[in-house]
């Protein structure tokens, strides 16, 4: 890929301190993102998959600086995002936007749709009030909403339409990088398909770069050009989509692909290998490789040392001692 890097994440860590209530007040550290490094290239759709608690949303939010980092760096076109003062950061947010999962809680119920979509323009003082109104109408049209409805409130729209409002808001400033955090997960499948199409159409039209976070492997597999898989705060595997779909080597990625229900009833005759056990708590992850208690291939080294993310073939990296032949 010759495209330039928009985002560089270097050894990013985001820890949360959890206080437990009760007689003995104790503190624990939740390592939501624990040493993640990745590059996002211009014009790509980088899919992030993993189960609850794997840190995928925290990763997206920390890149957007909605969380403060614990350690590491996030560079936007070579410039350190976390070194910025608030004024300079505001400048950056012109180019970086986010679409959220829940179209119910991410829109202010007391504001009219025109206000919600136009707010980024108001904040950054772009155009005259009339120009902003025109822009709002144009944005609504762009995402498939009738501009005549601009004086309505969020509750007057269906879930899919609300998600369109959230998308229009993210588009308002002509960003180049958009984090989609489970942007289609709360929608019914027929509406989900519409929103996936909308996101893809917009990407082609404007050349957006997406960081597309989702738990649904099928959706990520369809939409992304490159996929990274997370487990308990770390990247376990990353590769181009076609490579990852054909040739997923990390035992967790394999478990994920196996577990995903095929939408073909004939496929159930081929008995699947189901990975046993639960996802451990990210507050006290297992020693060594976090996946080792559930991994059918685990050896002694896996219990002791966390494997580094290493390139196996060009563009395809995995964090697994067994795959790396280094046991």
């Amino acid at each position, binding site marked *: 890929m010759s495209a330039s890097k928009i985002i560089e994440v270097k050894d990013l860590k985001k820890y949360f301190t959890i206080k437990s209530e009760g007689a003995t007040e104790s503190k624990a550290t939740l390592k939501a993102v624990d040493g993640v490094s990745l590059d996002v290239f211009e014009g790509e759709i980088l899919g992030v998959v993993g*189960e*609850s608690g794997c840190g995928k949303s925290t990763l997206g939010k920390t890149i957007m600086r909605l969380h403060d980092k614990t350690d590491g760096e996030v560079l936007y076109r070579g410039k350190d995002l976390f070194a910025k003062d608030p004024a300079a950061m505001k400048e950056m947010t012109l180019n970086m936007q986010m679409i959220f999962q829940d179209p119910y809680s991410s829109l202010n119920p007391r504001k009219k749709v025109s206000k919600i979509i136009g707010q980024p323009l108001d904040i950054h003082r772009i155009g005259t009030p009339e120009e902003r109104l025109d822009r709002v109408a144009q944005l609504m049209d762009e995402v498939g909403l009738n501009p005549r409805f601009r004086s309505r409130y969020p509750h007057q729209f*269906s*879930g*899919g*339409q609300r998600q369109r409002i959230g998308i229009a808001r993210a588009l308002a400033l002509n960003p180049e990088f958009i984090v989609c955090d489970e942007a289609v997960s709360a929608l*019914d*499948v*027929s*509406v*989900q*398909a*519409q929103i*996936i*199409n909308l996101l*893809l*159409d917009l990407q*082609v039209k404007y050349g957006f770069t997406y960081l597309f976070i989702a*738990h649904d*492997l*099928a*959706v990520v*597999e*369809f*939409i992304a050009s490159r996929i990274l898989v997370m487990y308990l705060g770390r990247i376990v595997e990353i590769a181009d989509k076609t490579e990852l779909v054909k040739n997923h080597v990390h035992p967790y990625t394999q*478990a*994920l692909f*196996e*577990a*995903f*229900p*095929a*939408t*073909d*009833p*004939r*496929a*159930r005759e081929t008995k*699947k290998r*189901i*990975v*046993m056990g*639960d*996802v451990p708590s990210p507050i006290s992850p297992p020693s060594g490789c976090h996946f080792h208690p559930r991994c059918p291939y685990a050896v002694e080294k896996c219990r002791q040392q966390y494997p580094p993310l290493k390139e196996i073939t060009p563009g395809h990296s995995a964090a697994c001692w067994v795959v790396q032949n280094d046991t």
Partner: protein
Amino acid sequence: MEDTKDLLLSINNLNFSFDTQRGVVNAVRDLSISIRKGETLTLVGESGCGKSVTAHAINQLNPMPPGRVDSGSIIFRGNDLLKLKKGEIEKLRGTQISMIFQEPMTALNPVFTVGSQIADVFMTHQHISKSEAMEKAVELFRLVKIPAPERRIHAYPHQLSGGMRQRAMIAMALASPEPGLMIADEPTTALDVTIQAQILDLLNDLKEKVGMSILLITHDMGVVAEMADRVVVMYAGRKVEEAQVYDIFEEPRHPYTLGLLNSLPSNSKYQGASRLEAITGTVPDMRTIGSGCPFENRCAYASEICGKEFPKETALNESHSVWCHNWQKVQED
């Protein structure tokens, strides 16, 4: 049409509606389904299609009022459940018709241990002592593959993971002398995909071991493909297609069923594609649906009659039926 000997439950022409402040919602319209012994029937459809209302009508879990049964009957082992008194239906719930829910945390009582909640079921319906009931609870925990069952029965619901809680719920549903029907309402929707695979596997396993029938409610065609023997597709309160699972996936004849399958990014037709064939529009307001086909406003095959009249059943083979005026056009495509 069906061999009545094998029939466990049949819902006949059920009409169920809710009185709301803004008008009457006909949540289920003229619905008939039947479940045979030992089979898994899935009701599939999107939010608001009436699949949960149907399931909850069986053991009278819909709030009434505002809900009401306008007409129809639900025959289970020869009795019309809609005519039973409250006490009688309560008895059935714990013994012959059990239910598991999407979010086990809300279905379990947080202040009692899971073991004692299961023991309660035994003690209420089988009148045995607490210690015997606890022993039986351990056995059930073992059956649903909860590790270290002797220890886990003393756990409170919040001490278990989501997957374990769902297993405990399943164990409770099995705590009856003659399990007949298990209603599973989106049992894996709140779970991660690796845990979902475990629970689906467990349900399939138990179905054979215990010999029960499962009525599975889901919105996820992947779960349907994994679990179903037969499938009923619902849209806006109506049954629109019914068939063996293979026919639904391989020869869908209702435009909505076809649209649902085409909405799945995992559909094999999308290898290398850059767009999905999505259904346009949104589900209509349930208060304003007239006598026509509710899918008419989103349907690519709609013709004039569709807005006026809900179609009659067309039987394509002995188990495959479709309710569509233009199903032949779907077949041609």
